[in-house]
């Protein structure tokens, strides 16, 4: 069976002054449809890089990343963009942007622009999904600027769910002001994923955020350790450790 998402020997470096920092070192990983994968790691451990590569936002230096059998690394920017607006959704709380004065329902509905829906149909679908994330009818007609931090994360989730993606990639969904809101959000996320048979790839620096996930991965120094054998690094004799190296070496 083909995995929904697969990484094969993926490496990624970032320039840092005169050096290149090896963030991912020949990482292999497979995510099946409907499976939730939680990635735990400290700050600057490579979590975001892993997720941005999975979503096709960044490209690896080497290795292959496939989504439903298609090699993302060989796609054009436009093709990757379409993938990200269709079968895949990427969400990062730090990226929350909404037009001032725009209502919540319109904010969600406008994300459906590429689906060929009328605004009325888009709003209907947006209302349905907002209801799913427990933003009621009253909240849906509020301006986005009035949302609390926890509500804005729910609206971001609604925006992602509205397009029925097969894979939802969430980078540090949010730091919630209280723990019951955090737990409530993740419970909602898991149940929405189950209903839609949607795969989840979620990164957090808090283990407790990854409760109830099917697969847990820790990431550090470019390496992955997983509860599943299929998410591994390829350990070769004499492999270079993740860290810094001179460019061109």
């Amino acid at each position, binding site marked *: 069976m083909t995995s929904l998402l697969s990484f094969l020997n993926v490496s990624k470096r970032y320039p840092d002054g005169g050096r290149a920092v090896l963030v991912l070192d020949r990482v292999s990983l497979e995510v099946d449809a409907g499976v939730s994968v939680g990635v735990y790691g400290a700050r600057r451990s490579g979590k975001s890089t892993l997720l941005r590569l999975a979503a096709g936002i960044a490209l690896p230096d080497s290795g292959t990343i496939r989504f439903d059998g298609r090699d993302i690394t060989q796609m054009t920017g436009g093709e990757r963009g379409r993938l990200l607006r269709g079968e895949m959704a990427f969400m990062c709380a730090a990226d929350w942007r909404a037009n001032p004065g725009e209502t919540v329902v319109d904010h969600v509905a406008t994300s459906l622009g590429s689906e060929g829906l009328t605004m009325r149909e888009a709003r209907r679908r947006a209302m349905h999904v907002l209801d799913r994330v427990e933003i009621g009818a009253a909240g849906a007609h509020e301006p986005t600027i009035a949302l609390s931090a926890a509500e804005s994360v729910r609206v971001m989730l609604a925006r992602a769910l509205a397009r029925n993606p097969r894979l939802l990639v969430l980078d540090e969904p949010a730091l919630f002001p209280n723990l019951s809101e955090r737990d409530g959000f993740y419970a909602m996320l898991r149940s929405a994923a189950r209903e839609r048979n949607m795969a989840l790839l979620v990164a957090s620096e808090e283990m407790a955020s990854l409760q109830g996930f099917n697969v847990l991965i820790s990431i550090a*120094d470019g390496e992955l*350790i997983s509860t599943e054998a299929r998410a591994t690094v390829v350990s070769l004799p004499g492999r270079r450790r993740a860290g810094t190296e001179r460019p061109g070496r």
Partner: protein
Amino acid sequence: MRATVAETQGQDVGTIRQNVLVAVLSSLAGSAPTRPRRGAMASVSAEKTRWMRGPSTPLRGALLGLLLERPGHGGDLANRLSVRLGETWRVDTNDVYRLLEQLENTGLAASRDEPKRNNNRRTHLVYYPTEQTPEALTLWMETLLPREPVRLGLQAKLSVARQQDAPRVLIALKAYERECLVLARLVLPTDGSARSWTALCMDCTREAVYAQLQVEIDWATRTRRRINEFMERSQ
């Protein structure tokens, strides 16, 4: 752990959650009835791993490492053990004598009556490594110790690891990290709507488990990084 999960059938969700949490916490504390592990242990003759049974294995392993560094009498080894393992370990000198005797009985240490340095008329037993000691120490480094408090076992290994043991220690650290992830996955999630005091307490316990596991994983990754950096520098 598996037994605990199997026993949950027919219980209400609250009890199941509580059982899993207790099992995970116990496992972290080293008292869980964990299953015996196959693998490295199975391929090695039972004779060679007999000394690795029981809760004192980390101390016995650490003593082998110290003996290989240099021979010593019981008191000296107990002192060195205390210094090496740090304040969190309670090393009893009497226990050390008993463990040395056990190691001698299994052929991993040998003792000789020697005069005391400051009093030639009196003697004490000085323990030496045997031909089997290096192999036993290497084997211990490679062996997962599921019946022991794993973190303590790892700490003991680290305290006496030789530089050539670095790859084995790295493997043990990765295995521990994975074990922590597996434990985290066992904890049943909450929906964040703790409506009763009992549910709230369970949520707090769950938070404790995650916090503990997070600390353990962070420690393991930092330790791996330190070892890797050292090995890279010394190449």
